[in-house]
């Protein structure tokens, strides 16, 4: 399985993160997105006429939507991550996958403007981003009331992975995450998952590594 990847793209990171969390093998093929605009070159347009990355290629299968890639990876290697097989659960996962597009447009749009000289109406993007974060915060608070940690059901699903990157990187677009305690706890839980990998702008939880000042047990 080959992922056409860009290290700074949150959508590419979604797929790398998913693969790392479930231990799926992934071959990375770096794309010179910035400054080279390689995604708009002939070779990559032939693969994905939309001119976007990531692109996932597995044999004859070519995917250009990150949500589909998450579903494919989970389907292949970790079906539990698709959520429970009930109508409600499946619908909720779809709901959050679609919601993730709003995060991409708003938070991702603000990030491109603030960080990589992208074009767009920054204020409108930020307003839309804050509205989406508030919705997510309310939903995650509701989950906490029910004793839950994740967006859907009892365990982590592709819905969480789909929403996490753009939310965690909201500050890149000058959108503060300070006002959202439930989002903070959810991100912390995700960053604490075995196999978690970081990307620039998202720090790992250093406290999970052994403390160099505390002698190792049994030593």
């Amino acid at each position, binding site marked *: 399985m080959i992922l056409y990847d860009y290290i700074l793209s949150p959508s590419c990171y979604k797929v790398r993160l998913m693969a790392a969390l479930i231990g799926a093998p992934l071959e990375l093929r770096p794309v010179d997105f910035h400054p080279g605009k390689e995604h708009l070159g002939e070779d990559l347009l032939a693969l994905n006429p939309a001119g976007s990355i990531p692109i996932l290629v597995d044999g004859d299968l070519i995917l250009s939507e990150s949500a589909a890639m998450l579903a494919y990876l989970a389907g292949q290697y970790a079906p539990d991550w698709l959520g429970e097989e009930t109508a409600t659960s499946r619908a909720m996962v779809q709901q959050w996958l679609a919601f993730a597009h709003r995060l991409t447009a708003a938070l991702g749009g603000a990030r491109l403007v603030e960080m990589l000289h992208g074009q767009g109406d920054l204020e409108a993007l930020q307003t839309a981003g804050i509205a989406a974060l*508030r919705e997510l*915060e*309310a939903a995650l*608070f*509701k989950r*906490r*009331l*029910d004793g839950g940690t994740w967006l859907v059901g009892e365990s982590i699903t592709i819905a969480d992975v789909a929403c996490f990157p753009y939310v965690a990187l909201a500050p890149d677009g000058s959108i503060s995450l*300070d*006002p959202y*305690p*439930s989002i*903070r*706890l959810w991100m*912390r839980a995700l960053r604490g998952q075995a196999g978690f990998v970081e990307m620039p702008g998202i*720090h790992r*939880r*250093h*406290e999970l590594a052994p*403390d160099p*000042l*505390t002698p190792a047990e049994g030593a």
Partner: protein
Amino acid sequence: MRLNASSPWIPLALSGDIPNGTVIPATLCSKPIAIWRSQSGQVNANGNRCPHRGMRLSHGFVRGETLSCIYHGWRFGQDGACQHIPAHPDVVPPASINCGPLQVAEQDGVIWVAEDQVESQPPRLDGLKPLRSLVFCAEPEAILTASGGTEVDLGVEATLAGTRICLLLQGQAPAETLCLVLVDQATSPKACAEISRALEGIRRRAEGETEKRGAA
């Protein structure tokens, strides 16, 4: 205005939002601070500026009973004193280096912070339990109006979805108010969810009001 009643103790967060081993940013009288809970459960508060190079300590991490800065890993104890500088592991940091510790108290599920040394305890919140905290882009007065409640010390009391609630309000910046929501102790989980949803309505109204006033 009792909304702005001066109390040495400022309610800044709900206990449940800061589990063991975590740190959060907060605002004390428009000054950025960090509130953190050690691994053993002790709550601490200090300035949010690392004395080394000014990095926000709320971006740091909690190890055991210490808070570490994310930039160069300087470690601070519960008294705010710097305990360890990773670049010089064998040096004992001078006692003068600290991150500006603040007085903090945890009571009734609310974390209170005081700028100066105070003898008193924070006010009791009898019969109430914490629900959630949210930020309004509105002034406290607009929240009072939108909630249809009455003023009490540090906030508003109102009835929402048939339940007594209390909103502790703290201005953080112009037109930005932190709201800690407490509900009657007997409130069921179902009613809590309903209140949470109704609060979003209050926020929409309060912010709509603030925007209108801003435009006028």
